[in-house]
């Protein structure tokens, strides 16, 4: 399992990847963000969660610094004992939410990934 981001011709990086990046540039490489730590930009603890999602569900927008290029992701956190600016690291999780419990077709996407834990 990786947390795959795309790097584009202009040097920018996006997570998730898109067939075309900024300015219509094509992806030229992939980067595994699970090899990096990230900084919490903002976070929330959601208490009204959909079917198959843990409750509460603490989420954050985090920012990675990949050799000077920043890229953001929305991630689950392992704890709500966190504040903006904290450094967090990925911990592999087999199911971030229960496939099939919600409206999304289970086979249409993957369900494993990374929760982030304060360093």
């Amino acid at each position: 399992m990786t947390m795959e981001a795309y790097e584009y011709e202009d040097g920018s990086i996006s997570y998730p990847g898109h067939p075309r990046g900024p300015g219509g540039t094509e992806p030229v490489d992939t980067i595994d963000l699970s090899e990096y730590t990230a900084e919490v930009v903002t976070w929330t603890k959601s208490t009204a969660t959909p079917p198959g999602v843990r409750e509460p569900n603490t989420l954050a927008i985090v920012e990675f610094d990949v050799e000077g290029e920043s890229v953001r992701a929305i991630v689950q956190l392992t704890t709500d004992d966190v504040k903006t600016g904290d450094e967090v690291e990925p911990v592999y999780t087999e199911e971030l939410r229960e496939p099939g419990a919600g409206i999304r077709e289970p086979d249409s996407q993957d369900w494993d990934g990374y929760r982030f834990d304060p360093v």
Partner: protein
Amino acid sequence: MERVAVIGASMTQFGQRESWILDLLAEAGIECLEDAGVDAEDVEHLYVSNMASGEFEGQTGVPNALAHDLDAMPAYTQRVDQTSSSGGAGIYAAWQSIASGASEMTLLVGGEKMTHRTTGEATDVIASLTHPAEYKTGVTLPSFAGLTARHYLERFDAPRESLGKVAVKNHKNGVDNPHAQFQKEVDLETILESPIVADPLRLYDFCPITDGSAALMLCPESVAKEYTDEYVVIAGIDGATDTHVVHEREDPTIMGGVVESGKGAYKMSGYGPDDIDVAELHDMFTILEFLQMEGLGFADQGEAWKLVEEGYTERDTGELPINTSGGLKSKGHPLGASGVAQGVEIYEQLMGEAGPRQVDVDIGLACNVGGFGNCVITTIMEAAQ
């Protein structure tokens, strides 16, 4: 190009309704035909704004069904889905149908039936608009609001109370809207002590789950004059799209779709933010009222909360009344109906038909947001001169 007029409007009671989607749509559609004085057989295009009748109810094909129920055949029908901005997108589609000359009488009906679902199920249907990388985290639209609200409050040193004051204002306005889901004032203390939903946001920072529908009748101005001397004109309208993935936006506090659709609507109308007398903004979450005020140029970035604190947006005493209808917050948010209902409120304000909600107005604006700013429609209307 001939101007596009609005000659009729209606909305049903919003709230928990026993009716299902087809009956809700027919209710607003019939009332709008009567309000406009238009025979169903004269409707050439019929648009239905609806996000998810198939997912909520297992009922698809709603435009065809509505045309039959209204006896509006053989009108051309089309469903407009742009998630929460389906209603605004419906106004844009209806405007296009008239402005292009394709139709001389277009009925737009927006509606949604939601309350038979649990909160979790309804939240999941709405969250299904997210990218797979977002969806698997369990993110919901309220979660996006919580993430953005924390960032806004910390970055601009805004007090938590300022968000609560948006809810206080909009609930107060909703008291005078007989169609609103909640016709009840709520004080700041109650809001700030209500259960956390996506901190720092609490229950009263969020709109409810709602059933309901609303409708507008559009035609060329020359045709409008055959029906009435008093009508409203769409002076400017535009739609714009921002990133599908919310965290990819460079600045979480700037809604690019609001900025761009606002620019387009201002340019078409020849008006600017200072010309607007009343606005209906998409307050699905209190933080969105700040972000739209800033995106539409009513306030500088990071400053909207100060205007709310100063009472600038109050209905009876403010310089720019916002959400005189009670907004989504108090009126309710039946997804496909909401953007149409915003148009209904601006129409009634411009026609002088808003009763106790009436403000002094020549030009009004509606901003309808889909997703978390993913798709946005801004519409500017004025009374016919």
